[in-house]
């Protein structure tokens, strides 16, 4: 499924020449350099970003501007990363988060 808007009456046509590869729950996914993780996921039709701790209810993007934290996922071993305001990087590992997530050892270190 491709949800990208490549032709637009106001914004014009767009061609993506700079792409990066990210890994979503281990699956390789092509993303556009500089775009937010949430955008790459929605472009591929992925809508569930995490499951809540108590009821295991699915959640996805909600506010899109980094306020509501509904879209948090585990990124490169670091849980609770707001995917709507975090840009993709080459080789990034993005995982569906369950509950509050778990820190991987060493994640977030310089």
């Amino acid at each position: 499924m491709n949800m990208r808007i490549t032709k637009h009456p106001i914004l014009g046509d767009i061609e993506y020449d700079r792409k990066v590869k990210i890994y979503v729950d281990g699956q390789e996914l092509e993303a556009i350099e500089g775009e937010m993780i949430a955008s790459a996921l929605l472009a591929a039709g992925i809508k569930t970003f995490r499951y809540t701790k108590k009821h295991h209810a699915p959640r996805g993007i909600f506010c899109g501007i980094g306020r509501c934290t509904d879209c948090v996922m585990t990124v490169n071993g670091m849980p609770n990363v707001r995917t709507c305001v975090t840009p993709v990087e080459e080789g990034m590992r993005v995982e569906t988060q369950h509950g509050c997530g778990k820190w991987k050892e060493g994640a977030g270190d310089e």
Partner: protein
Amino acid sequence: MKGLKIDGAPSIDELRGTPGYPGIERARKRSIAFIECIEEIPCNPCETACLRGAIKVGRPITNLPQLDEDKCTGCALCVAACPGLAIYVKTYDYREGMSLIKFPYEYLPLPEEGREVELADRYGNTLCKGKVIKVDVSAKNNRTAIVWAEYPQEYFEDVVTMIRL
């Protein structure tokens, strides 16, 4: 129909008699702008765009645009200038039995010139077939295309747009 604030589109009764909506007798004589702007919102680019001074908003800028039916030549400069996309230019006697509309259009794909399209009323209902005469995408319109289409005179007032392709 119950009017602008319920249907979302202005009814003919709401439009007639507003200062931007021309009298139907005048409209049948020569090309003229139909300004379908019936709420006092703070906006005046139509006034600024008109080179002939045929549209007056004045102060405060919430005044309804007033159309000078003698000065308007139907040049359509106001059509893409209107941020509300609420102005159409219509010619009743474009040719035998046919009228012409120039309407703003901001969707893709654009229709090709010469193509037959379905023309619609203010509620999105298909009214009749029409033929695209021209698609004006000049830079001054800043990505608001102006589509010219001819259609049967009996739908003169009701046609405002086309069904998207």
